[in-house]
């Protein structure tokens, strides 16, 4: 199978993820969309690694997974705290940090 198909798939997934971040209000869903974008990037890395015939891209994919795991821990903790204080997981409501 042609590796460039994986790249196209990765672009599609990234686009869906970005759209999800922009249009959804629920923090959890936004968070999932972010994960989708990260994994789309991972897929692109792996596909490019395959196309170039070396392991660099695959190594980076592992790093991304590790960072993503850490980010999920922090991000979910923040979302839970916001939910506890506001009884809502909407990301439009906590908008006090502005001019």
């Amino acid at each position: 199978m042609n590796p460039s198909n994986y790249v196209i798939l990765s672009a599609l997934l990234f686009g869906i993820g970005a759209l999800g971040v922009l249009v959804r209000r629920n923090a959890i869903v936004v968070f999932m969309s972010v994960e989708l974008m990260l994994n789309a990037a991972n897929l692109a890395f792996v596909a490019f690694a395959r196309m170039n015939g070396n392991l660099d891209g695959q190594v980076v994919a592992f790093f991304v997974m590790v960072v993503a795991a850490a980010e999920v821990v922090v991000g979910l903790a923040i979302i839970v705290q916001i939910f506890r204080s506001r009884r809502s997981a909407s990301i439009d409501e906590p908008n006090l940090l502005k001019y």
Partner: protein
Amino acid sequence: MQEVMPATGVFSLLWLLIALPLAGAAILLFSGRKTNKWGPYLGVFTVFVDAIIAIWMLIAMMGNSAEQRTFSQNEFSWMFAGNLKVDMAFQLDQLSMVFVLLITVVGTLIHIYSLGYMSHDPDKRKFFGYLNLFVAAMLLLVLANNYLLLYVGWEGVGLASFLLISFWQIKPTAAAAGKKAFIINRVGDVGLSLAIMVMFVTFGSVGFDEVFGSTSQASEGTLTAIGLLLLLAAAGKSAQFPLQAWLLDAMEGPTPVSALIHAATMVTAGVYLITRSNAIFDAAAWAATAVVVVGVITMFMGAIIGSAKDDIKKSLAGSTMSQIGYMVLAAGLGPVGYVFAIFHLLTHGVFKAGLFLGAGSVMHGMNDNVNMRRYGALRTAMMVTYATFIIGTLSIMGIPPFSGFWSKDSIIHAAFESNTLVGILTIIAAAITGFYMTRMAAMTFFGKARWEDGVHPHESPKVMTIPLIILAIGSTFMGIALLFWGNIETWLEPVTGFEEKHIAIPEWALITITLILVLAGAAYGWIQYARREVPLVAPRGNWLTRAARQDLYGDAVNNTLVVQPSFWLSRFLVWFDGSWIDGFVNGSAAFFGGLSARLRPYQSGFIRSYALSMVGGAVLVVLALVLVRLS
């Protein structure tokens, strides 16, 4: 050439001459009110000890041969930067010696007089502290062996003068007069500092020996520049044209100050500077001519002002200007004149101090009134003051055998030796001197009593009259003593050089002409002010009198040429600062403030809009990359 001797024996006390009054000033000025009781005596004591040391030094110096009368004492290296090396070093030679004597002896008498004059002042310790400070600075000025150290003393006497003129700073006029003196002196000081800089650039040193020893290496243009700058300095300190305006206002200070600083010592510092720098002026003919011109102009300005003022101290101040004009003129004549400039300076220091202290004594008896139109007939009320004042008057007029005659006649003779026109002018000025001094004496001591109500003139206490008597004795005999017994020409000759030229007019004829003119001036003054009634309110007078009452428009000229333009300039600068400098700074601040106010709403707090801008930015970056690739 002079041999420089190490300062041994009594001369090892050179530093003490300066340190004693300096210590006195420090104690009096730092220890506050509690020294009011004994402080004045301490002030007198330090200067008195100085005078004794000075006389001792004179005796020791006379024991040496003429070539071995320069003593130098190097205290420590004061400044050390690159090529500039300045020592804290003192040098006593024949010229400094006479100055040290004048400063300490006349200074002692004036200190003693001040004990009486200032006895009721609540701040008298401060007064004596300032006087001591002045004596220390003046001694530093004349004992320095380089121009930079001289400059320290120069500034020191300026400071002391400022402090003492505005000693009664409660009076706005006194405060203003002090500031005026300080500022005008500063103009002269700029000349001195520039002269020192030029010297350093040209000769690589500021020491007297180094500079005078290498004048032949410098171009005449450079020497003329140095000479003119030194003349500017001298004009500032000695109240010579065009920086003369401060001296008349300086009379706001207590009378002993006028006597010590603004008649006898400090105002002669300019003459000292020119005489000390004789090697430079000898090599720069133009600068020397400028010195003569300045001296002649001031000689007449002072005499004219002195003839018109009704304030006894201001009249004396005009006379001081005039007499210093004589000295400056003599110093500008070159080797024929230096010696006589110093000679006249010494006799003038004594008789003018006596005259000022006499004026102070009169004021003391007249409730501090200075208006001579309210004096008159005081000769019976204050005998001692009257007698000493008359002796001083005869001396300054140049009547033989009083000391002023010998010194003034020497200057007139020297003037004829170098230029007949200058000689004639000095004789005319001498005639005006005869007029204004007679006028002053007549208005004060003769005629009818025109006293204000409730004034009971009385003789001053002994502590004031004894200095007057000593100064009167000095005014009588000092000229003869210095000329015939002290041999002032040969005494100063190793330092200043001396030459005598033959002139066509015989000496006796010159003296006779001068005396006739002086007596004519005096007779006119007598007829005008002793034989006729003196009106209580000054008559309008002719245009010259009116001009002289306004100090010959010295203030008006300064006002138009300097003060007003300065005001305009400062107003322009304030406007420029306000509208352009501030405008630029505030404008840029307002610009960025406004810009950020417009950009602020984009910081909305909505996470999704931030995300959108991030995505938009990423898309733009990708697009840019793609476009760069394609092109």
